[in-house]
């Protein structure tokens, strides 16, 4: 679905990168989201004080809420992988919301962006497992008893690979579906504000999808930490 007007793509055309900008709008917009998050973080953390100012207060509420929730889900070990999952949550959430702003485009409506979020989760899961259990991490793949290992090994490997597929395809399909519905409704009856109810739904959908990506990553990490017998 080609969008009629993308603000930042036009900006890149002025610089002279129009081929790149027209071919890869999702990369341009993921840069925009990154810049937004970095600037917000820099403003919030510019002067950290015991009595917080407004920006610091907002950021503290978001971060402490997320941290409490992560520790609630994954136990006390969840505190050290919290920065990773919180980054993924904020990035995906703001990427999903960007599609609602006119002239913007959801970077998550492209399979490359969602895969680039899902593959680090896959590798980090196994990094956590090897770091905590050492060589004993192989027990996670061998099933309940040792002689069942040849049966369980392929099943476990496929289920670990299917996690990447399901994480990335779920997010991509949801956000692409939302973008296409918004585009079609805008073309059909944009003058009568037909896309507005779907936009309200899209805010909820963006939050829920980011939350589910975050929650499933936390649960995969918690499963990798868990002791297997």
């Amino acid at each position, binding site marked *: 679905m080609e969008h009629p007007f993308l603000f930042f793509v036009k900006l890149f055309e002025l610089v002279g990168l129009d081929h790149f900008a027209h071919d890869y709008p999702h990369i341009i917009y993921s840069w925009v989201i990154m810049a937004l998050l970095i600037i917000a973080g820099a403003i919030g953390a510019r002067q950290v004080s015991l009595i917080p100012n407004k920006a610091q207060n907002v950021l503290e509420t978001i971060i402490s809420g997320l941290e409490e929730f992560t520790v609630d889900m994954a136990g006390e070990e969840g505190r050290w992988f919290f920065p990773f999952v919180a980054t993924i949550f904020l990035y995906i959430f703001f990427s999903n919301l960007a599609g609602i702003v006119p002239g913007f485009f959801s970077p998550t409506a492209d399979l490359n962006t969602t895969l680039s979020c899902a593959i680090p989760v896959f590798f980090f899961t196994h990094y956590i497992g090897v770091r905590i259990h050492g060589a004993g991490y192989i027990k996670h793949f061998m099933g309940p008893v040792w002689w069942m290992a040849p049966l369980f090994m392929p099943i476990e490997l496929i289920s670990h690979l299917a996690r990447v597929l399901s994480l990335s*395809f*779920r997010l991509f*399909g949801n956000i*692409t579906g939302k973008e296409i519905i918004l585009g079609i409704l805008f073309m059909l009856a944009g003058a009568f504000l037909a896309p507005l109810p779907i936009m309200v739904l899209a805010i909820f959908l963006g939050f829920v999808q980011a939350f589910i990506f975050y929650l499933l990553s936390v649960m995969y990490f918690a499963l990798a930490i868990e002791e297997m017998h």
Partner: protein
Amino acid sequence: MEGEAIQFFSYCMLVAGFAVAIAAAGCALPMGLSIKSAVEGIARNPESSGRVTVTLLIGLALIEALCIYTLVVSLIIIYAAPVVQTVTNLL
């Protein structure tokens, strides 16, 4: 050749539309059942609403993912239709 191409295109559209319709119908029943059980659970024990809601959201996302896979497949069918035409011309 022209008529065959148009026929092929209309079959693609038909399949893509019906695929999502059937998948949505199949996903609606388990989602309704799980929401029903969650609401009953919350009504009996309102203190557990936080945990129940989180579990419900995960479950709904996992069920919904099946429908989304069908959506992705039908998107592939729709957008791959011109490519398939050029391939069949080569044969």
